[in-house]
């Protein structure tokens, strides 16, 4: 079993393989690179191929084989993001690469006693600092101990396996836990009002000049999408390592609507030719298309894209302006 645990680096927090032998540090905010990376890695090798004169073309499947992995300190928003990814990678086609990793993963969440970021806004998007969706276990920090809830069979099993470490909560502890959860929600500073009004409004705005204005300062980097816990667009490439005999592999990597070669056609035509079209794609995917497909937002309000945007593009501000646009 592998355990991933919050670790502080100069640039922020990571989820790093470690022995989880203590409390989660009290100044832990969120992992800059969200836990999606451990389930939907930036690089997934689909298969390897080689062609020889004697044996012709051969393929070797490379489905991931991994021991169970426990990710500790998953913020509730990131848990909800994994639940959204689950929907994307199932349905009429169940992605075996994703699900091999997903089924080997146990998500141990940590409720937010205070918002990890000034830009947290989960409560505007049907989430909360103590949301349980997508998680297997939820920890709430009561100061000197954790209030632990097993949420799924996997999570309950994890607790049972170490049952000597746990005791049933007292009434007082239950009350304290509820109080902390309520206070956590009240401390959220940012709000996106009436988010459910957005999809119908955005649907009317595809050709609006609004996007040009909103994207003026965008530099079309991949930060907002690569570090988004729900963004899941990918590219598939054949990487040829040798020509004679032919040898290589087919690889899936993260892709993003913010890059100029995203959805570029082989003719050179790109249906999203500029950064305004790309910003529109990012927001419409999250707040319109995804809602139409799955009846949920593809944004969990984690605040990363606001915290990390090099030019201060504020998704809450842009969406609020969009809602009032032309009104």
């Amino acid at each position, binding site marked *: 079993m592998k355990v991933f645990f919050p670790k502080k*680096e*100069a*640039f*922020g927090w990571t989820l790093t393989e470690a022995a989880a032998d203590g409390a989660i540090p009290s*100044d832990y905010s969120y992992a*800059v*690179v969200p836990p999606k990376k451990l389930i939907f890695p*930036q*690089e997934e090798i689909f298969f390897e191929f080689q062609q020889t004169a004697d044996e012709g073309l051969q393929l070797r499947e490379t489905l991931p084989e991994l021991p169970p992995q426990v990710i500790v300190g998953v913020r509730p928003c990131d848990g909800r993001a994994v639940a959204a990814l689950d929907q994307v990678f199932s349905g009429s086609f169940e992605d075996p690469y994703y699900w091999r990793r997903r089924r080997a993963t146990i998500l141990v969440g940590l409720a937010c006693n205070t918002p990890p970021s*000034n*830009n947290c806004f989960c409560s505007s998007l049907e989430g909360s600092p103590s949301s349980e969706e997508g998680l297997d276990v939820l920890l709430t920090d009561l100061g000197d101990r954790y209030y632990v809830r097993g949420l799924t069979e996997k999570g309950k099993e994890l607790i049972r396996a170490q049952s000597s470490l746990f005791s049933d909560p007292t009434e007082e502890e239950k009350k304290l836990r509820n109080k902390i959860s309520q206070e956590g929600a009240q401390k959220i500073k940012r709000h996106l009002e009436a988010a459910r009004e957005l999809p119908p409004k955005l649907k009317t705005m595809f050709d609006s000049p609004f996007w040009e204005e909103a994207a*003026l*300062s965008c*530099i*079309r*980097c*991949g*930060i907002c999408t*690569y*570090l988004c816990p729900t963004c899941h667009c990918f*590219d598939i*490439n054949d*990487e040829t390592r040798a020509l004679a005999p032919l040898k290589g592999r087919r*690889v899936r*990597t993260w*892709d*993003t609507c913010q*890059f*100029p*070669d995203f959805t*570029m056609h*082989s*003719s*050179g035509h790109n249906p999203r030719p*500029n*950064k305004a079209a790309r910003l529109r794609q990012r927001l419409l995917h999250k707040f319109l298309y995804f809602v139409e497909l799955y009846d949920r937002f593809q944004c969990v309000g984690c*605040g990363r894209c*606001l*915290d*990390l*945007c*090099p*030019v*201060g*593009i*504020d998704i*809450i*501000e842009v969406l609020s302006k969009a809602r009032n646009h032309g009104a």
Partner: protein
Amino acid sequence: MVSEDKLREEVKKLLQEGKIKYFIGYENGGPGWLARPAFIQQPEAVSRLIWSPGCVHNLTRFLQDEKRRRAREKNPDLRPVGLIVKGCDSRAINVLLQEKYIERKDVYLIGVSCELLGVVDEAKITRRLYPAKPLQVRFGAKETILVLTDQGEREIAASEVLADRCLECPANFPLVADIVLGEKINRPNPQPYQSIASFEAKSLEERWAFWQEQFSRCLRCYACRSVCPMCYCDECVADSIVYAVSADTTAEEKAQKVKWVERNPEPQENIFYHLVRAIHLAGRCVDCGECERVCPVGLPLRLLNKKLEKEAKALFGYEVGLDANSPPLISCFRDNDPQDFIR
């Protein structure tokens, strides 16, 4: 002291008289406490403009967007774009002029002198004030930075929280501008290569191990490239399919296009990308530090760029961005080149 009122007045006049197409400056607001780029189109909007130690961005990067816009439009508005340039940003303008990427008449420059200060390092301030959270920054009197926090206002010595590149800045005053705000005060004893001194003392093996570890973290979000005023190529070696395609490009030509860098983020691909970028910036990087600032996983990219800047100076006596009329380092050749293989 740079006067914000004067800045707003000048920009208002330029917009009212129709001398510029729009103005790129800085404003407060947005999700963080640093300033953010502001695009001012109407004279009434000049009240948004500010000048503070949070004005970290190199706005010359946005000239790429304007250039692309012009190329796209049938009858483009050819008036100059107005923008604020700090000393470092003005050196970027000089490089763009040297390379004939822009013409002088394309831009109207309001230069600001950093005087004895500069812009701040976000992480240094956050660390210095923890657990108080910064909300806004202003210039203080006597080389200090005033930070408004959620626990009241704090005054910090600038030397503690300025960006490293400002502490090492050789030219804290705009070298090219139409108007300059603030006084020209030379920084005493700038130490331009301080940040690489200790790194250079390490052995080759240590340095290689360091970079392998650093680059293994890279996500290839390309924020370093996207934010760079010098990374303006239409076709980048790091992209898989962005290359010039015309109606005559055959399928074979497309298929045979060499893929120099694979998309996977394995160390060898990441290192290749970053080294290509570093070499491409030799003699062009003005050390605005934006690549390092925006990196979400903290890659110390200035180290690479500073090293090449130092090499260019040591080998060719070349300093970046000082003179718009001198030929660019990489595209010129001199009979007295110190290395004989090229003569």
